[in-house]
């Protein structure tokens, strides 16, 4: 089925995770739960990480029972492991602490992230605007102009830790406009 869905020119799927026909139902549900946990609870949007963390968890948990670790070994990804799943997530960390006056919310996924994270504004601020990233001591660690409501934050040079991303509209220089035209969210860089 995987090849039919992947190769469909009119639709189908973007990736399949399958082990047909060598799975067993007990392990299938364990793998599914691990995958769902990675996606929904941990905010992992990288398909390869979500799949392989699930596999590794089951293999490590049941090293002596091949009816449990075997299907996890056989669970295979037909697709690009670096694919970023297009799934709007609630992140594992509270975003936008306090309601922003503009109604604009900022989401960051995955969270925790590794080398990069996707930042998405729920509704556009008046462009142009800037993205500033601060560490927990309040030190500005990154700043860049932004023109799209979706932008990639490159975190590969950031030490592990908690950061705050703040998007500020260029109109903030107008008197009284500062709070209206900004949104912020916290995120974690964690590589291991």
């Amino acid at each position: 089925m995987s090849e039919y869905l992947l190769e469909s020119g009119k639709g189908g799927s973007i990736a399949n995770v399958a082990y047909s026909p060598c799975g067993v139902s007990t392990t299938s549900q364990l793998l599914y739960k691990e995958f769902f946990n990675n996606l929904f609870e941990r905010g992992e949007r990288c398909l390869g990480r979500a799949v392989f963390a699930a596999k590794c968890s089951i293999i490590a948990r049941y090293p002596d029972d091949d009816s449990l670790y075997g299907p996890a070994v056989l669970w295979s990804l037909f697709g690009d492991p670096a694919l970023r799943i297009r799934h709007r997530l609630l992140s594992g960390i509270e975003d936008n602490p306090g309601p922003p006056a503009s109604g604009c919310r900022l989401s960051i996924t995955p969270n925790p992230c590794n080398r990069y994270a996707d930042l998405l504004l729920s509704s556009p601020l008046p462009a142009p605007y800037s993205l500033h990233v601060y560490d927990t001591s309040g030190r500005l660690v990154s700043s860049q102009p932004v023109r799209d409501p979706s932008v990639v934050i490159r975190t590969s040079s950031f030490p592990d830790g908690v950061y705050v991303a703040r998007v500020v509209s260029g109109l903030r220089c107008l008197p009284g406009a500062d709070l209206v035209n900004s949104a912020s969210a916290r995120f974690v860089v964690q590589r291991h």
Partner: protein
Amino acid sequence: MNRRSVLLSLALAGPLAAGYLITAPESLQTNSADYLIITHPDFTSALYPLCALRESLDLEVRMAEVSLVYSTFAAGERYDRIRAFMERVYSNWNVRPEFVLLVGDACRDSTHDDFVPVKLFPKFSYPYAGGLALHGTDNWYATLAGADSTPDVMIGRLPVNTPADADSLVAKIVRYETTEDTGEWTRTTMFVSSNDRAPDAAELESLYSRPNGDSCYTVVESEGSSAFLRHKTIAGFNQGAALVCHCAHGYQPPAWAGSKTLFSYLDVDSLSNAEALPVVLDRG
């Protein structure tokens, strides 16, 4: 235009293409990459847009054709040579790839071209459907440290058989990752379940999907006839979902089923969800 768009447009025009492909045997021995593609030469040219997309996300990208791998690592079967290359990459490259993508289908029974082979192993101790005595898995290429079965790199495969297939699938991936659509489908999970697996689907729905605000579209065997169920599954795909979770049984020719067929490979032609492509968890 952001950097991703710039790089992508440049790659589509061609000028960046040459830098990704490893052409010298010594560059297979020592190199560096975050993202490594191992491809059959038939598909190389189709992969440059994907290389550019990954590079735009700050991944260092390298691509190796199996023909160069086979001639550089000359001992054993073709899968042994790919494995030897992977071991060299893992032990010797300055930056080990986090992601490895195999491009080309594997064929276990000589009925099709074996573009990027897979090694077959004796089955595990539990009964396999169809009485199979062997299994093949790409996991073997990814277990590079220690004696366990835990993968040490994240590996995936595009199981394409023609350059046209490769072009089409790469175009799908690039479009999927570069469009900004955040429509309702991106918060929808579809569950397709047989009667005996319906509790599994219900558990996933109640534990993860609904508490996190996802809409759930469910197809359960008990809801009606096979024709109704297949129609409902097709409708679910076409309505759009970020995730499709198959909680039933797999059959040959390819189908998801319990005692009734829920979705068949014949139904794929009825899908029109090109702008809302799901990741499919296929229980098989």
